Structures are given as structure tokens and as C-alpha cells.
């Protein structure tokens, strides 16, 4: 396990383009092992673009700036190389894959996944392993179930850095508490977590928060302070405007 508090991922002056348009404008931030970092901001402020660019997804071009994982510059590495080094993403709208079971999917990121690992991860997202392990990650799962499976897969992987892109949307109250607990647990086990979310219950659990607007970090600080001081601002900002 990396030293708690050490910088696990560092982003410096990052500019990201998608389809020719610059969406992220010079973001710099550091994620620390064992800490929860939240990114908040209105729809269209660039949260998902930042998440997918950090993962190295196709279609997101890093136009300028660097990304370091630990001491290694990973800016020019592809998605798989980044994942191999311990960076992963819980997708906002994860793909549906015919014929691939939930059990297999959750264990994908483990070296030698055991039944117990998979069950523990499913339990942690409030999905009964007995009922879900054998189902497929296809269209038969609801949006909330699919996102919880996604989070379970990230948890089972024990990544160095986890980017969680709105894993909590479309999920009801009691399960949100389970998810907030799991995200805290993920950090407690040493992962540096970057969390994109609209749910204040989840955001409040973070150690640090960034308020994103029009692809720029407007302000950073304690999440409760940000919500208190800027909540009205970002909640009331119409989407797509700065």
C-alpha cells in the first residue's frame, strides 16, 4: 500500500479537447493516497471530460499539460497502460456487455479473483451476491444496478487511483449510504479517490473538493465549506454556461 497522504496522481495545467473543442482549460490538482477528493459543478462544466481524459479514453485529446502517476509521467500512455499502473475509472454510463456475468466482471481487475473477493465487493454496494453474481452486465440490469456493479469492480481492483464519475446517480437513499460507506472504505484501504458527484451526502464525505465551472477549477477547499458558500451558485447555474 502506498504511503497514506503521498501524492498518487498529479495533474498540471491540463487542457483537454473533445471533437475539436477545448472542454478542460488548464486544470491542476493533486490526489493523495487514502484521501477522497470531490469535483462538483453544474452539468456541462467538464467533470466527465476530466474523468475520461485522466483514464485516457479514446476521443479525449490532451492538448497541453502533464499527468503523473506517482513519479511517472503517464500523459502519453494509453488507457490500458494507465490501468496497468493502477489507475481506473468507474464509468458514468458503463457499457453493457452481452453474456459477461456480474461475477466475472467484478473480478476483472483482480490478479486472481476469488469468490470471496467478488462477494465482498457486491455486498459492499448492497447487491446480494447470490442473486447478482450469475446475471449478465447487459441490458437486463437497471441503470442503478449497473453503476453499482461498476463501483464493485473498481473496489475489487484495489487501484492506486480511482476516478468515480457519478457512480451515485439513479441510486436510491438507502443504497447511497452504502455507496458513501464504500467510497470511504476504498480511500481507507489506500486508494486516492477522485469523485464526480451531485449528491451532497457523498460530497460531504470528501477530504477536499474542487468546484469546476466551464472547465476550470474555480475554487478548492473543504467540501462542507464549498457547499455552504457556493452551493447556491453551482446549483443555480444553468447548464453549459460559465
Amino acid at each position, binding site marked *: 500500500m502506498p504511503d497514506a497522504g503521498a501524492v498518487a496522481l498529479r495533474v498540471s495545467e491540463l487542457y483537454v479537447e473533445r471533437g475539436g*473543442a477545448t472542454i478542460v482549460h488548464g486544470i491542476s490538482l493533486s490526489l493523495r493516497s487514502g484521501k477522497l477528493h470531490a469535483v462538483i459543478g453544474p452539468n456541462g462544466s467538464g467533470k466527465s471530460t476530466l474523468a475520461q481524459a485522466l483514464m485516457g479514453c479514446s476521443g479525449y485529446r490532451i492538448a497541453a499539460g502533464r499527468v503523473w502517476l506517482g513519479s511517472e509521467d503517464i500523459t502519453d500512455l494509453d488507457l490500458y497502460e494507465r490501468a496497468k499502473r493502477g489507475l481506473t475509472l468507474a464509468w458514468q454510463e458503463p457499457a453493457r456487455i452481452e*453474456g459477461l456475468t456480474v461475477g466475472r466482471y467484478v473480478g476483472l481487475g483482480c490478479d486472481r479473483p476469488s469468490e470471496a473477493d467478488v462477494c465482498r465487493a457486491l455486498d459492499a454496494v448492497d447487491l446480494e451476491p447470490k442473486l447478482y453474481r450469475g446475471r449478465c452486465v447487459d441490458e437486463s440490469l437497471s*441503470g442503478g444496478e449497473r453503476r453499482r456493479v461498476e463501483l464493485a469492480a473498481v473496489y475489487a481492483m484495489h487501484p492506486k487511483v480511482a476516478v468515480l464519475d457519478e457512480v451515485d446517480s*439513479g441510486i436510491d437513499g*438507502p443504497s447511497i449510504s452504502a455507496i458513501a460507506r464504500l467510497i470511504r472504505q476504498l480511500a481507507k484501504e489506500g486508494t486516492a479517490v477522485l469523485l464526480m458527484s*451531485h449528491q451532497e451526502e457523498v460530497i460531504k464525505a470528501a477530504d477536499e473538493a474542487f468546484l469546476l465551472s466551464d472547465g476550470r477549477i474555480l475554487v478548492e477547499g473543504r467540501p462542507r465549506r464549498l457547499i455552504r458558500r457556493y452551493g447556491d451558485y453551482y*446549483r443555480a447555474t444553468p447548464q453549459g454556461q460559465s
Partner: protein
Amino acid sequence: MTHYETIVLSQAASRPLPDFLQAPGVGSLVVEGSNVVVAREVPGLSLEAETISDGVKLMLILAPGVRVAKPMHLCIGSLAEEGIQRIVAEFHIGAGARIEFIACCSFPNAVRLEHVMEGLTFVRPGATLVYRETHYHNGIGGVRVKTRSQVVVEEGGCFLSGISMTEGRAGSMDVGYQVDVAANGLVELVAKGRGYGDDEIIVREDIRLNGHGARGLAKSRIAVHDTARCEVRSTLSGNAPGARGHVDCVEIVSDDATADAVPLLHVNDDRAQLTHEAAIGSVDRKELETIMSRAVDERTATDIIVRGLLGDGLPFEHGLPAVQAAPDNVHSVPAIEVRQLTRDYGQLRAVDGISFSVETGEVFGFLGPNGAGKTTTVRMLTTLLMPTSGTALLNGFDVVHDSYQARRQFGVVPEDSNVYRELTARQNLYFSGRLYRLSREERESRAVELMTLLGMADKLDVLVDTFSRGMRRKLTIAMALMHRPPILFLDEPTAGLDVPGQRSIMDAIRKLSAQGTTLFLTTHQLEEANQLCDRIAIIDRGGIAAIDTPDGLRGLLDDLRVIEVVLRPCPLGAEESLAAMRGVRTTKRTGSSLQLGTADPSSVLPALVAFAEMNNLDIVSLNTRGPSLEEVFLHLTGEAPEAGDEARPARRRRRRCSEGRIR
């Protein structure tokens, strides 16, 4: 069960058979080359096998009304390296009878071997024949398989047939079916294959839906690598009213392999409905990246996706057709009427005999915890998923038997937007309008009308890729409304949206309701449901826990009143002390406010005031109120959040279905 047939075939001549083929009640037939090694009948089934010059001639007759409980094994193969094996087979399944075959074809030593199968099958009225055939070839690709099956499915008959050739190299596979289906008959053909080297996989299916309500599905999943080639020709003819057919073809190509899919749909009766979807190409990039983000390399990820697609079994989608009543012709029909609707996934009963109805113009909320069966119910109502049993009518049209008409009654707004990002809003709307055959003028005026209604008139010609999530969601709503459907299904319409986004969607819903559209809303947002819905159904563990107006639901907890008090200072442990008071049933803290649930506030209040005085606390505010919708929801579903507790009681969300229903 891998390769057991190989063992059977190679050992058959000299050694005793494995036990499972000798189990009581299990029929079996083992053919090696032109030798019939085993032919075991079961009661009601007559089996004749006769050696011909280059193979075997078979005749299987199942007497009317006989339902064979255990699948019968057919092992047909050859240990030869070359030559020809010809199987001429006739199957007669008597009226009302039912049988399932598990067939294995194995050619472990083939170098230049030809296997030809000529089949003639009769599925008599009300009979069911399920046939699953798995091929086991070696890695040389030295087999040339050619099958030609002619099938007649009579009224109400059911023929489910699957062939899978995913182990070893396919060699040359040429699979041909010609099926005639009479009234209310059902046929489902599934072909799965994987080819390497210079393998060739050809699937030709010709399904003729001749009778009223005949249904047919031709599904293929094929992956070809190296220089292999595949070709799927699926022909569907809709020759009678109410006939429904679908071709579903996915072919994955890598290296220099090539693939063709040729779906041919003939609609010879305009009340028949045929559809097709075909996808050919490399593996979906998003699926790949989703798997690769777990540190799986591209090659392995591709293999995982292909293996998932090809599967290791031959699951049929429709299962057995349920016997259903004809639609009612009552005058004032409800917009949605659901009776005893049930759906199983394997042994899991996701929806368990629910019944309810929704009146025209109503905003109906469908609430429940994750996994309660919301999505499954909506998928059945929107004809995407076949119910295991029960009925659902949309404006009187049955979603199973009258799905074409039923489908014209509604629009769907999925939770994940289904818009094309590389098109403009207008192009998306026109596309949606074309699907429902709107004229150009209608498309133009409707697009402007809807975008104005949703406050996005200025975004008509803007690329969707630049839209935020909330704008995409609104566009999805507009697309679902292009054909003016009387019913609109919305799945989590405000999930993942910020507050202004949520508000504008809720406004849109109110406007639509005011215009007379019936709205069916699945949501987690209790406050949203409270504000929008005329009535709410709470679904839990596949069943309906309650249906009522928001006020009516609160009335269910008549004996629950809530005292809200803010104490200053608010000592740690105040909750515990208050919980111990007589008459207090629940306690909860939200920020600085404490909520005490009680049946009788007047007896609790004095004790509360005494507690404050004794501990030198100021009562900043105090009031009593009825239960909130959230409290009702938690009461009904038993899903109360436990305050920071690690050990939660294990919950069982779904019921297992009764034994024997599913194989």
C-alpha cells in the same frame, strides 16, 4: 459436459456407457459414422435408426400429449479422418407433446470429412420441440458440415432450435433452415459460431410466418478471425395479420476476416410486423475500454467480449409462449392496465404477479428500491421483454399479442440518453419522426413545437455533442414525443441532473400532463414523485406494496406523527436519551434538527420539554407534522438507512420462483 460426447463416441464401441446416459427416463441415441451405437427410447417416444450406405436414417416419433421430462441426448459424430457421413432424420412431435434434445456433434479426427444432415420436422398443434446442438471440431478445420432442415410448425406449436460451433475451428459450416409457422406458432433459431484460418460459416434461415399471430426470431452471433468468412442470410416473411418476426444479427470481425449479413424482410400482409437489427464490425470501442480500464489488455478484452457474445449455451429469449386472454373491448379503457404480470430471470422472480391500472392523463409514479423490479416492469410494458405470464394492455392493446398497435401508444425516455451526438437536435428529431413515418411537414412543425415547449428552440441546429446532460435528456423527451404518443414512459428523468436541470424537466412533465399525455414515471426521487404524481405505486421485491395518492400513502401511517425539535446546544447522545422516552418509536437527526416518531405527540412533548430543562438546553424550534413520503416508503419497503452501522441485516430482495417452472 465438455467433450463428453467425444469420450462417448470413442469409447462407445468397446466400453460401457457413462452413467448419465443410462439414467432412468433419459433417452439417448449415439451414432458413430454409419453405426448406431446406442438407441434408447423413453415411454411415448419411438426411435428407429437404420444404417444406410454412407450414414444413418433416423425416425423419431413422439406420441400426442406426451411430455418428456428429461432432455434426450443425441450424440452424432465420426471418428474417421475423411469420407462422408450422411444423416437423414425425421422428427414427428405429436399434438400437445413436448421434448427437448441436447445434441452433440463431434469430429475429433477429421481431416477431410463431410457431415451432411437432412432433416424434416413436424411440430403438431400445441407441441413443443427444443433442440440444442453443440459442435466439437478439432483445431485443423477439416470438417465440412452441411445441414438442411425443413420444419413445419402447426397452430400454437413451438420450435426452439440452436446451433453452436464455438469450440475448435468451424471448418466449413453451412447451416440451412426453412420453417413454416402456422397461427400462434413460435419459432426461434439461434446460431453461434467462431471461425479461424480460412474457415467459412454460412447461415441461411427462411422463416415464413403464415398464420395469424405467428412469431419468429432469427438470432446469430458470429465471430471470424484471420481470413475466415461468414455470411448470414435471414429471410422473414410476414404472411398473415399479427405475424411478428425479428432478425437479430451480430458479427464480429478481426484481422482480414470478412462478414456479410443479409436480412430480407417480406411483408406480404400489412398487419404483419417484421424488424431487424444487424451489427457487423470490430468489437465496440466503449465495451473494450470499459474492460481495459480494469488493466485487461486489448486482446484479452476482445476475447472476453466475443466469448460473452457467443456464450457457452443456447439461451432462448421467448421461453415458452404463455397462454393469454384476448384483449378486452370495454369502452372506456384505462391507458395502462396490468394484470398478474410476472417475469422470471432463470430462477429469479423479478416481477411477481403485479396488477394495477393507470387512467388517461394521469401522472403515475413507480417507486421502489434498486432491484425491486421497476426496470423489468417497464421493459415488459414497452414490449422489450416478454412476460413469463400475465397481461399488460396499453389503451386496450396487448403488449404481447398486439404489440404493433401497443407500440404506437407510447414513447419512451430512457435513463441513458439515446441521442446521436454527431447530429444536431433537429436531425435527431427528424430521425425519430421518420421511424414513425411522419411526413416532412409534420416532422418540421413537431420539432419546432417540442423544442419550444422544452425551452430549447434556439438549440435546434446545434450539434448534440456540445449539449450538457440535462439538454440531452430534454432532447430525448422530445424525440419520444415526435409521434404524439398518448402515453410516455420516463425512466429516472432527473437522475444525474443538477437542480436547474431537474426543475426544467419537472416543468416539462407538468406541461405534458396538462396537455393530456399519460405519464408513467419511474424514479427514486420521493420529493419529485410527491410534487408531480397523481398516484404512486410502491414496488418492492417484485410485488406492489401500495398504490395511492401521495396524501393517501401518508395516511397509511396514520399512527405516525413526527415531532421536529432543534435544541441548542444539541448534546451528543441526545438521540439515545430521547429514544428511550416513553412513546418515542423512532429518532433521526438531520443537521441540528431531531425528529421523533410517535403515535401520540401530546404524551411525548412534556417529557421532551422536561429533558431540555433538566439538561439546560434551549428549544430553538418545535413542531409536529404527519409522516413524509420518505417515511412511508421506508416503512413499506423496510429499507430504513441504518445510521453509520457497518453490520446491516442481510436483505433478500427477490423471491425465488416456485420449483419446476423453469428447467
